[in-house]
């Protein structure tokens, strides 16, 4: 049985752990609020851009001169998967979920005979995928979200994606990230960004008298401007979502850890007190039986 001293040391160490986890929870909670605001503030732009692009895309789709970013390269042999994770751990299943989804996607694509390339945003994703998919990683970024998501960083990643696409390095590009729903729920999401998926609502629009848009300058000019912007925007909004999700996941993970530490302290204290009482009783018995023997 553990001695009293061992128990005391153990209780103290768990108490210290609890202090750390509860501090981390507080930090995550305050960061979460900021990240959540940023994510919600960023949504209108993404929504409107998608609406605008959807409008434009459904009118240009099918024509011969449609830009590659919209129409695709005509094949889907090489897939680029952008895996968005955090740089730091201790946030529950946050990183693992993204990586698991990525692994599953890689398997699906490989059984279809496609080639897969990976672009890792965030250190944890790279570290976890390095073990079995090291040969597929073309580029990895880390430290991008240290001060919250930043459009300049998102643009940098988007430029890399676009440059690779122009060079013909891949045909389809998909983002995998955690969509923020609440502090306890994050949804791992796959989103195709290249080629731009033309929304299915065009069927409904065709039913009624569809408003014809005038374009200034031409449709093609706007599209060639808008499509790369959209890639950057999608990367940016997924970064925002991811950032908020990370803080949410960390907050609930640390909340659990704090509670578990509390339970553990309670149990250990009980054992400690019992042991102490047992020792006192033992000593008393020894003294009494010693006195009786005289």
């Amino acid at each position, binding site marked *: 049985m553990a001695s009293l001293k061992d128990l005391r040391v153990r209780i103290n160490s768990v108490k210290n752990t609890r202090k750390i986890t509860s501090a981390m929870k507080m930090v995550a909670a305050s960061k979460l609020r900021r990240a959540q605001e940023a994510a919600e503030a960023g949504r209108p732009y993404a929504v*409107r851009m998608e609406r605008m692009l959807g*409008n434009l895309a459904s009118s240009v789709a099918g024509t011969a001169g449609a830009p590659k970013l919209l129409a695709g390269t005509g094949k889907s042999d090489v897939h680029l998967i952008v895996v968005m994770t955090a740089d730091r751990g201790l946030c529950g299943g946050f990183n693992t979920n993204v990586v698991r989804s990525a692994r599953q996607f890689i398997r699906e694509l490989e059984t279809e005979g496609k080639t897969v390339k990976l672009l890792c945003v965030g250190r944890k994703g790279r570290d976890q995928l390095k073990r079995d998919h090291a040969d597929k990683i073309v580029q990895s970024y880390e430290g991008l979200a240290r001060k919250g998501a930043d459009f300049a960083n998102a643009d940098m990643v988007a430029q890399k994606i676009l440059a690779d696409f122009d060079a013909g390095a891949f045909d389809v590009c998909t983002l995998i990230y955690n969509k923020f729903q609440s502090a306890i729920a994050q949804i791992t999401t796959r989103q195709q960004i290249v080629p731009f998926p033309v929304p299915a609502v065009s069927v409904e629009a065709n039913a009624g008298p569809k*408003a014809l*848009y005038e374009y*200034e*300058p031409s449709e093609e000019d706007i599209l060639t401007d*808008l499509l790369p912007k959209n890639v950057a925007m999608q990367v940016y909004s997924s970064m925002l979502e991811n950032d908020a999700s990370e803080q949410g996941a960390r907050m609930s993970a640390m909340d659990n850890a704090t509670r578990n530490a509390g339970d553990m302290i309670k149990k250990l204290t009980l054992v400690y007190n019992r042991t102490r009482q047992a020792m006192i009783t033992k000593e008393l018995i020894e003294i009494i039986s010693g006195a009786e023997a005289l």
Partner: protein
Amino acid sequence: MADTLDFELVSPAKLLVSEPVSMVVVPGTEGNFGALPQHAPMLSTVRPGVIDVYKNGQIAKRIFVAGGFAEVNETRCTVLAEEAHDLSTLTRDSVDARIQAAKDALQEADSASEKAAATSKLKVAEAMLAAIA
């Protein structure tokens, strides 16, 4: 007929303006255009310049945008701007500093893409200067 249209100005970071107005004048790439209610649907790119927001026949707000896209239809005018500042918050000094920074970037640029980026930055800064002059 409604006599106002909903004007929305959105930047990647947030929704900046969303309110009913009587007219907006947007600096399109091929010239400024005014959007009144019941305007024909239109999509345009936006060059760096000033958006004038009219309410009751008067300019209620002047906002500088650094380029983007505008979508107009019968009831709505949406501007997606990469960057937007209320004209009253811009000062001569900050604009001068921006022009200088852009010029420096242009000098130091060695690749074609860097040069293009710096040139467009300079254009934005010069448009800003023209806007406050």
